[in-house]
């Protein structure tokens, strides 16, 4: 499993280290010295820049790069996530075809529900299924 927070104050790396021994690949900017604090036995800093991708676009680019590198599973964890327990049971025994995402918060002003697939409709895509809630991309895998 490759799990990697996107780089930030170091919370995911350190909290992952406290809850399980899963390997963590941390994509980071090597110039940010605080990243050095993430160095634990199972945390490996990936200091090489991605071939492309920036801002929010970095997520699919980073995930694809690790899948191309041979990782069977990749879980992205945003840098503002605190891990409070071993997350591996959430992903255990899932078929490799399964995509994991988080329900979005239920804030009314953020349009929790996707209606009859209205985001797809607005992108002029035909709706194939209606999700029970819109998705949050903080922990995709």
């Amino acid at each position: 499993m490759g799990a990697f927070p996107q780089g930030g104050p170091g919370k995911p790396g350190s909290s992952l280290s406290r809850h399980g021994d899963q390997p963590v690949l941390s994509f980071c900017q090597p110039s940010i010295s605080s990243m050095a604090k993430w160095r634990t036995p199972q945390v490996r800093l990936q200091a090489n820049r991605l071939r492309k991708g920036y801002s929010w676009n970095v997520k699919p680019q980073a995930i694809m790069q690790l899948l191309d590198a041979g990782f069977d599973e990749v879980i992205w964890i945003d840098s503002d996530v605190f891990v409070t327990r071993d997350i591996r049971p959430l992903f255990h025994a899932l078929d490799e075809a399964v995509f994991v995402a988080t329900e979005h918060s239920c804030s009314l002003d953020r349009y929790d529900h996707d209606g009859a697939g209205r985001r797809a409709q607005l992108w002029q895509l035909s709706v194939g299924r209606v999700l029970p809630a819109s998705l949050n991309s903080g922990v995709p895998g």
Partner: protein
Amino acid sequence: MEWLKRPIHMQGDQDVLTALLSSTEFAHIPLKTLRRSKHIVQFDGVWGYTTAGAAAESAW
């Protein structure tokens, strides 16, 4: 464009993700959702962990 002024389907990457996984082209992809309150608490004021969410979690 300021976040809250964007159209709902263009607010962020997750809105595009929702659109794609809802679309006919990708509707066959099995999806597991991490449940709010049960699996993740989001930093979103009172909406991050609601009474309803807590009740639902305790009922699981």
